[in-house]
């Protein structure tokens, strides 16, 4: 399941950001009467169709996996939190319908803005899907909407409030962070693509990719800003709603005031070793707003419910890379304002390609940190992963099949996209 979701989120972020890039390119193309941007929109549409096709198949597999691999969890979801999942499929459907309109009806709209608007609905459907799925994840982190003590005592699901899933204590911040990081990571995938293509092309073709890079960079710049802000707010959210996870991420063994921010370090035989640096009071300030604010510690909880403490290392890496990206984007933005033409410098294109790869790694790392940090719970303080999983040996071939799907289909799809675009030279693209 982890492998499937790990790959699926890459397809998902592409599906979220790509319609935005396409629509932005189309609108700029119409407004400036610039055929380059229209070509960008048309060529990226080819990618969108294939990623949508594979993404839909992948989404179906994930839905089947949830059913077969986590039956007890799905029973709970079915009774308490199903509305988020159910509304999500309507959003997904909206995306599919307007994708059909957008892709296959370029020539049927007299007003080209009307055509672009159908693309806006595709983008809206895609992002709403992400919002509603994240609401289910927020329910897993901060479960509400039923009588939890009764459920823990008797296993009976009672006093259900089906609307509660839309507004759990962690919903708002989790949704904001997931949406902004999706645009951030997805945007960087296309920054990588355009930067790579710029290096490989010359003349008109290079200009085409240069303009594509402008669009992808603009969207990603905004997303990076929000991703950093919501990332910081997420930590405060964890402090309030999942103190165990917070303590593990910060490697706080005991509750304390004036808590320092530890950079690096690992847990060994009851002590913390290998700390690179300690920033006095910073953790307390970030979590509570004051230097003498109290932060939770792992000693307040039984060892059996501690998350794996590797999450501290993962968390540090994630935060470090996140700030690195913020700095990189800021520097490029300043260079653009100063008209230094940063995208014309080869070394920066190499850096952007590397950054694109690291951004995907960061996306995976962020997701893994959030999920590992909730261990051993699948629904925090309600259901353990071990209680929810289908442990039948018959499930192994099914899991193998899912892994095989991604290993074969994803690379093949990328190769096909490459071939399709190669067979359609930019200069011959109809606008």
């Amino acid at each position, binding site marked *: 399941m982890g492998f499937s979701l790990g790959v699926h989120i890459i397809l998902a972020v592409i599906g979220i950001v790509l319609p935005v890039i396409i629509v932005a390119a189309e609108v700029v193309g119409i407004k400036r009467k610039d055929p380059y941007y229209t070509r960008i929109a048309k060529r990226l549409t080819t990618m969108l169709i294939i990623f949508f*096709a594979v993404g839909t198949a992948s989404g179906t597999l994930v839905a089947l996996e949830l059913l077969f691999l986590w039956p007890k969890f799905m*029973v709970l979801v079915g*009774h308490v939190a199903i509305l988020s999942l*159910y509304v999500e499929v309507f959003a997904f459907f909206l995306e599919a319908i307007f994708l059909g309109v957008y892709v296959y009806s370029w*020539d049927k709209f007299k007003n080209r803005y009307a055509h672009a608007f159908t693309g806006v609905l595709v983008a809206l459907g895609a992002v709403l899907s992400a919002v509603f799925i994240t609401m289910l994840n927020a329910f897993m982190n901060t479960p509400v909407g039923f009588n939890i003590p009764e459920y823990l005592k008797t296993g009976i699901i009672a006093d259900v*409030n089906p609307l509660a899933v839309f507004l759990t204590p962690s919903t708002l911040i989790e949704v904001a962070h997931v949406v902004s990081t999706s645009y951030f990571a997805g945007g960087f995938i296309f920054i990588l693509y355009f930067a790579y293509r710029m290096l490989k092309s010359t003349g008109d073709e290079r200009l085409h990719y240069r303009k594509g890079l402008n669009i992808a960079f603009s969207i990603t710049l905004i997303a990076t800003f929000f991703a950093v802000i919501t990332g910081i707010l997420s930590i405060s959210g964890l402090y309030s709603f999942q103190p165990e996870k917070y303590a593990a991420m910060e490697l706080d063994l005991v509750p304390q005031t004036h808590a320092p921010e530890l950079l690096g370090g690992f847990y060994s035989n009851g002590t913390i070793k290998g700390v690179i640096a300690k920033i006095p009071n910073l953790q307390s300030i970030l979590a509570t707003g004051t230097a003498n604010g109290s932060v939770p510690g792992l000693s307040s909880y039984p060892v059996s419910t501690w998350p794996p403490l590797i999450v501290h290392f993962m968390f540090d890496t994630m935060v470090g890379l996140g700030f690195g990206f913020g700095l990189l984007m800021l520097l490029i933005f300043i260079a653009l304002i100063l008209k230094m033409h940063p995208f014309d410098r080869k070394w920066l294109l190499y850096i952007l390609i590397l950054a694109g790869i690291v951004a995907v790694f960061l996306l995976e790392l962020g997701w893994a940190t959030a999920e590992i940090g909730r261990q051993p719970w699948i629904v925090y303080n309600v259901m353990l992963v071990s209680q929810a999983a289908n442990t039948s040996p018959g499930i192994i071939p099914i899991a193998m099949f899912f892994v095989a799907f991604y290993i074969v289909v994803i690379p093949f799809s990328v190769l096909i996209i490459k071939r399709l675009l190669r*067979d*359609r030279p930019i200069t011959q693209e109809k606008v």
Partner: protein
Amino acid sequence: MSFMFSINYFIFSIFLTLFGLEVGIAVTMLLEYDRYKDKLKVFLMPLWEITGTFAVFYLVNLEATVPSLLLLLGTIYVIPLLVAAVFFILRNAFLSYSEYMKNENSEKLYLHIYILSTVIIAFIAISVLNSAISGISVNASSYSINLAKMFINSFNILMFIGIALLAVFVASVVFKVHEYRWFTGVAAILGVVSIAIAMHAALPYMFSNAFGFGLLYLIGILIILAATIALHYYKNKYAGYLAVIWFILAINFFGFIQGNYLLGGTANLNNYIATGSAAFYVNMVTLIGGTILAVSLAFFIYISYIKKAPAITNG
């Protein structure tokens, strides 16, 4: 059936109608690739995303409306569902690959993989539906199934042949494949006969409501079918619309014969349908979301299949 379940079943009928059209296109392309490929691709390309999304939609819809039944059915049909998922991946992937392919040989190869996958998905889907309705091959108390029996029994084989023939008929009418209108008319009649024999063979397994109001309904849809065949024969422009309406109504007929029961009468849907406040909101979402989707779908059909491109496209 309850009102809300009827609404859900109606949505399901629309899904099966669209998928039926897709299967009809696939089979027609298989038979006459060179002659109809370009014409049918125009119809197929906007359609496949909708039918593909419907599959996920229905999975979650069942999770919302009958969560514990889904667990029962999911456990029983896990193997055929996964095999269908493999072909679903192939269908999606290869159709999308073929779309912009310039090399004709590659396009033909990819489209044939798509066609084969679609027909296999249809066969598995019909087999699962037939088995779920009739209970043939299923031991519900032990959550087990005899897969060979599920696929190979007279009810299933005849139903598949009948539905395939009717799908080809409807696709031919909708997409105006006039050259074969004699053949497709006969195919429709043979399809109905095949389904009638299948139903008769399975009567001991079925919880049948096909009498009383159901019988009137049956006569009604047979009259509409006859009218559709006649309009198609005379190349009337409304034949396609009537064919689609007929297909939806014909699929709904199974709602009548199925009544509240699945698995040959052993599973009463009323015992599985979600109740309480969750059910109320699920129904609200179905009604509101369903209305939005219906309007969007109508817009999609208008833009994709009815509206002509204006002479000047620059806005």
